[in-house]
């Protein structure tokens, strides 16, 4: 019984194969263009207006939508749904429990995961989006629910557009696997 429990920790299989050079190249191109687009808008257009187009969780999204394009977690439904739902949950958590930041942070991430599961929009960076709504500091807090639209919804949409344009160039890639 107990040995079985510890045996489970040994793992059962080997890690998946490495990707080839072309895959690495296109992942790099996609991520560079996707992040540079939202970053440019953020730092060249929105700078000084109290708005931003980039949040940390977009870095994680880039891994998925440019680096693991076949993953169910990387599909448009997950990318947009995961970010937007989590942003709303994060903002709500902060506004309800801001006197206990530790609790607001935990409830935001946990609820975001549960909600993404229930809505089939699981997107790991969504957890970060929810967390940032709580621990992102004054600049994020003062956005209120606008945070769910700018930067979250609009930024994720821009990253999605880049994914659609770039991931369908190489013969060996196709994106998305599904929309809904």
């Amino acid at each position, binding site marked *: 019984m107990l040995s079985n429990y510890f045996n489970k920790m040994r793992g*059962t*299989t*080997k*890690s*998946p*194969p490495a*990707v*080839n050079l*072309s*895959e690495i190249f296109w992942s790099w191109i996609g991520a560079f263009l996707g992040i540079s687009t939202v970053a440019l808008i953020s730092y060249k257009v929105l700078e000084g207006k109290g708005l931003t187009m980039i949040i940390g969780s977009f870095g994680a999204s880039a891994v998925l939508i440019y*680096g*693991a*394009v*076949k*993953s*169910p*977690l*990387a599909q448009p439904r997950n990318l947009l749904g995961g970010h937007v739902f989590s942003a709303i949950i994060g903002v709500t958590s902060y506004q309800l429990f801001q006197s206990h930041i530790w609790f607001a942070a935990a409830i935001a991430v946990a609820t975001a995961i549960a909600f993404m599961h229930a809505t089939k929009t699981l997107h790991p960076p969504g957890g970060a989006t929810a967390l940032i709504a709580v621990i992102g500091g004054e600049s994020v807090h003062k956005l209120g629910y606008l945070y769910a639209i700018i930067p979250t919804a609009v930024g994720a949409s821009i990253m999605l557009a880049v994914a659609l344009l770039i991931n369908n160039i190489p013969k*060996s*890639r196709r994106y998305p696997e599904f929309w809904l």
Partner: protein
Amino acid sequence: MGENIKKKDLTIDIEISDNDIYEAMKDIPGYLDITPADLKDVYKLAYRHALQRITQAVRAHDIMTTQVFSVNRTTPVMEVAELMAEKTVSGIPVLEEDGKVAGIISEKDFLSHMGSRDKTHFMAVVAECLQGKGCVAMPIRSQKAEDIMTSPAVAVKEDTSVIEIANLFTEKNINRVPVINEEGRLKGIVSRADIVLASLMKTKSKQ
């Protein structure tokens, strides 16, 4: 009859190694967000579902040959042999006057009724002919279909599943089986080849 054959569990175990899966994953360009072990589990389960679906969902009337040549009880065996040769079939149903299946004649029935000493092997018949003992088929020359047919024939209903038919083939060591309706009338025939063809076409149409 087909419905008396017990449904056997499918004991087809897929011999697929972790390495097969790993190599298959390498064949697919791009990063696959799944471990080889999980993929293997998915593959095995999917295979089992497919087997179940195909073997249970496909029934006799889906794959049977409906254009069946048949003879009557009183058809002379010579005509039976001629018809089987002309239509290139290795078995032919024998019908009653009202269309019910009375029996079935296969090449094996010819062999076992001919004058050969070894009654099961075609080559034994050839050998005896070559030994100058004359045509061993002569003794049955004046016989009729009903004299050499296997009766009653093993038959199946139109909704008998393919897996049951396949088991029947193995169990009774036969190669074809007439398909009959509720009244016992001949509706078609299923041969081993029909089963193979059906599974091939299923695979093809999905691609």
